[in-house]
């Protein structure tokens, strides 16, 4: 199986002498006695759109949460843009990362959550401009201007002064995306961002992701159950099963041509 992973990796278009922006190296993750990830090796390249699929509990969320520093790997390394995320060098030795180190390395990463996690005590505009001002020390006027542009881009230019509880789920999720995007991340993580939405609101959110994906320069990791969407947007689909990558490759290969039995079963459930 390791062989097949390597093969599909090297056949990937993004892999021609370009340095990956994210590398997972033999990453293990256990919760208590349960080992969720069993030695994950995964490279993500600049601008690449990766869809993570797999059965519930297979560790998709855990993979991106470790990259966002919300969960710490049990062992193994995650390298972001050449820098070790969870460890830093001190007197020639690798030691656990300090808060300062984590902040330095995760600055290029943004994330959108299943349940939006907007700040309820701030207006939509404040939700977006707080981090650029506080974290990137951008001046207020320019952060405000960019936030407004971003909110207009996701179709919420008329809601600037509203509070999150005045918005629909789809609108909230679009705000959450704008909030992440104004930070100009090089990598964006999406954790089932449509699965908490009423079905009729899913489209507007996917629309925004599709637009962002088209712009191209940002790497995106999408945990999703929307197979058609993965097929359309992703450069690479990764099927996760039992703590390892069980299948990966171009969306059409993985979703339509694979012989992997577990994958077939998994996909069958979505098509029926």
């Amino acid at each position, binding site marked *: 199986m390791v062989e097949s992973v390597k093969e599909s990796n090297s056949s990937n278009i993004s892999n021609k002498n370009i340095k990956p922006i994210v590398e997972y190296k033999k990453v293990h993750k256990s919760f208590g006695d349960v080992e969720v990830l069993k030695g994950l090796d995964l490279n993500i390249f600049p601008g690449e759109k990766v869809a993570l699929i797999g059965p519930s509990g297979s560790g998709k969320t855990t993979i991106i949460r470790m990259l966002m520093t919300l969960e710490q790997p049990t062992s193994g390394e995650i390298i972001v843009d050449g820098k070790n995320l969870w460890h830093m060098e001190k007197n020639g030795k690798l030691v656990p990362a300090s808060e300062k180190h984590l902040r330095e390395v*995760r600055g290029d990463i943004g994330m959108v*959550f299943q349940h939006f996690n907007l*700040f*309820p005590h701030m207006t939509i505009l404040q939700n977006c401009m*707080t981090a650029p001002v506080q*974290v990137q020390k951008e001046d207020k006027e320019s952060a405000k201007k960019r936030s407004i542009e971003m909110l207009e881009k996701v179709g919420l230019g008329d809601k600037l002064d509203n509070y999150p*509880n005045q918005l629909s789920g789809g609108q909230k999720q679009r705000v959450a995306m704008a909030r992440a995007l104004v930070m100009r991340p090089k990598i964006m993580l999406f954790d089932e961002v449509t699965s908490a939405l009423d079905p009729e609101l899913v489209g507007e959110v996917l629309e925004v992701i599709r637009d962002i994906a088209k712009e191209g320069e940002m790497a995106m990791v999408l945990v999703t159950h929307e197979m058609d969407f993965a097929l359309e947007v992703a450069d690479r689909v990764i099927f996760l099963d039992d703590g390892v990558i069980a299948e990966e490759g171009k969306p059409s290969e993985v979703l339509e041509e694979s012989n992997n039995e577990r994958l077939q079963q998994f996909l069958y459930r979505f098509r029926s």
Partner: protein
Amino acid sequence: MIIINAMIEVFPVLMKGINITITVFIFSSIFSYIFAFIAGLCRVSNNRLVRGGTSIYVEIFRGTSLIVQLFWLYYAIPMLFDVGIDNRLAAGVLAISLNYGAYMSEIVRGSILAVDKGQTEASIALNLSRSQRMRIVIFPQAFRMMLPEFGNYLIQILKATSLVSLIGMTDILYHGNILRSTNLSAAPTVYLLLLVFYFIMALPLIFLTRKGEQISKRGVAS
């Protein structure tokens, strides 16, 4: 007629203590809040020692009687250590504030912990620092949750101020007691009026508490 006469006699006597009662109340409230915030934040600190030390303070002051704490501060400590508080106001305010600060720190702590975890995660994803997370995201939401309980405690602090008469501070209860001891038949009028006094002072606080509840309800829903 007799009752009204009695009231006319009692009222000005009690009024002599109103300054002290209000002064003790205002200082005690301010310091209770200060202690509550400091202790509450310490109790959610990452530092084990800070957390442990603070919870000892909280448990001791919640677990023992306020009157005894007051007597300790005013009578016992100065005698034991030969330094201390020979100022009644300071002793009274300190005892009440340490005691209520301990109770209210639990509200501060509970409210901070009650803020949805997703809020912290979103602020980490936006790369806010630990202190920014607390200051900008968590605390403002926690604060709204604290308001109703904080209002209730204000009313309790007001009622607790009457204890300072026990260390000889001349608040309204003190003056009432003096009057009763010189004129036993005045007792019913004195204590009826005292109740009315405390209730009237509590009215604005009750109103504040309602306001706090409204703000609290308005603010948190996402």
